[in-house]
């Protein structure tokens, strides 16, 4: 804090009472400005996650107070649950698809759209639009697209004279269908981040590489993409964190079914914890999810983003 140099020069004598007054003013400001945030945050963010840890040691349906202490049994039940394993697998699948398909697609589009041409801005906006739409609306739109009787895919199939598959109704394809929607919904967000980063690149670096005879591919591979590494690391982070909390999109499409084939961790928590009011069990899932999120955030920040 720069304790204003000019102030002490201008008023050397008024320092004592003035600074006392300022200190009081400071105190008043802190006492007035900080408590609302601290209170809300502590009450609705920190306490609940702590209570999740506490409740997870009980078998409790939410009524009365938790008395039936069962230690770590809830965690055992969670890990023994077949649907939990599937949900975990699905979350890994979402992360893999995000990293291997969504981000490269976003990067390619960003590079294609960072040059100025007619319609570039309109295309950017079109590609960003799905990100702004609610997950629920997106999910419903695609449950129409996938609908076996009326949907778009069904009519494409009928064009070729084949019987339309019900993608969402089969455990083999439900997750595939959801993954496509995830790419549709979120690639525009990552693309915008890449475009912002591309616009920040110093043009002279690219010019210099061109003059040195770099081909278009070499230019991308050795100049542009290395310059984007900080942004790429950031988008990887967002992809993983986003996929860990995916829920809204799953509900209108499949609700996690059929046969629990398309649950994510959060929809598993909802279907098995909230719907059945198994507070202890659901809290245990929450704690596991919390641990995954925090471990990932810390290790990723530590190992991948240390030079940013």
């Amino acid at each position, binding site marked *: 804090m720069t304790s204003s140099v000019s102030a002490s020069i201008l*008023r050397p004598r008024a320092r004592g009472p003035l600074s006392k007054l300022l200190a009081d*003013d400071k105190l008043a400001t802190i006492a007035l400005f900080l408590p609302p945030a*601290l209170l809300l945050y502590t009450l609705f963010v920190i306490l609940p996650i702590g209570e999740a840890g506490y409740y997870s040691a009980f078998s409790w349906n939410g009524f009365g107070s938790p008395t039936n202490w069962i230690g770590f049994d809830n965690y055992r039940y969670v890990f023994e649950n077949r649907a939990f394993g599937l949900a975990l697998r699905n979350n890994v699948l979402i992360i893999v698809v995000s990293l291997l398909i969504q981000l490269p697609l976003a990067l390619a589009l960003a590079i294609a759209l960072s040059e100025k041409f007619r319609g570039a801005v309109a295309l950017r*906006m079109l590609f960003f639009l799905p990100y702004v739409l609610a997950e629920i609306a997106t999910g419903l739109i695609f449950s129409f697209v996938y609908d076996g009787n009326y949907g778009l895919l069904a009519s494409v199939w009928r064009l070729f004279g084949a019987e339309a598959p019900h993608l969402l109704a089969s455990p083999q394809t439900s997750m595939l269908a959801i993954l496509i929607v995830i790419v549709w919904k979120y690639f525009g967000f990552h693309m915008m981040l890449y475009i912002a980063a591309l616009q920040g690149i110093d043009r002279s670096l690219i010019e210099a590489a061109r003059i040195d005879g770099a081909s278009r591919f070499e230019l991308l591979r050795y100049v542009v993409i290395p310059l984007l590494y900080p942004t790429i690391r950031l988008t990887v982070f967002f992809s993983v964190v986003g996929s860990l909390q995916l829920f809204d999109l799953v509900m209108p499409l499949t609700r996690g079914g059929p046969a629990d084939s398309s649950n994510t961790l959060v929809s598993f928590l909802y279907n098995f914890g909230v719907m059945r009011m198994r507070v202890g069990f659901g809290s245990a899932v929450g704690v596991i999810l919390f641990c995954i999120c925090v471990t990932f955030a810390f290790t990723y920040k530590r190992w991948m983003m240390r030079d940013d």
Partner: protein
Amino acid sequence: MTSPSKTRRRFDPAPLYKALFLTLVAAFVAVPLITTVLGGFKSLGELRTNPFGLPDVWEWENYWGILASKRYWVLLRNSLIIASLSTFLTLAVAAMAGFVFAHLKFFGSRMLGEYLMLGLLFPAATAILPLFIKVRDLGLLDTYFGVVLPQVAFSLAMSILLFRRFFKDLPPELLEAALIDGCSYIDYFRHMTLPLSRPILATVGTIAFVHSWNAYLVPLVMLNSDALYPWPLGIMVYQGEYSAEWNLILAFITLTILPTIVLFLLAQKHIVAGLTAGAVKG
């Protein structure tokens, strides 16, 4: 695209590939949206035989029926109330806290700052059951505030971070001069900081509003009565009731995402900047 030299005019296929690629992606994005809007104008029979093209007969009554129903307007009203309250509270609470962390050093301020940043690490879903019990015990179940307060609490970490960074970047001479003139911190906040903070208020406000407007999980857990449902909950109920009448559902979807799309087209710059701002933190 600048061609390297004008003497060499060989056919370059790259722009063609690029155009093809962009067209494909644009179709991938736009076709589901366009068919949704058009589908709302079709009869159920036509939807089945002609899902892509323009409707033969424009069935305006699909849309008019929904617009004339009380249901649609109640959903929008509820969403508007919840999102406005969330946005206003987030702005007020986070701006004040961000101001303290930007300008005032006190014992434990660093620790408190880090305590608040813990909220960035995990989503509301992790603690949804204890959150439900907390809201129930506070008597806020099935009220707007039962949804608003948790939403505000979970958006605080990011919002305070954005405010603090913006306030710190304001010229420090302003604060020094104001303090010398006998201005208190609170007056400075009201008369100097806030008027200068329109961009960051717009950014944080956009994030808060869009997230609250689209939110599903927290209202789903906290609200029981249809009368209070925001539109994402209401549209799920609607879909349950009219499960096979896709033309009506598509019309309903179109009408509920219409406000978002109109707002997006009107204020695209702010919205893009706002929604990507959280990402580009230094």
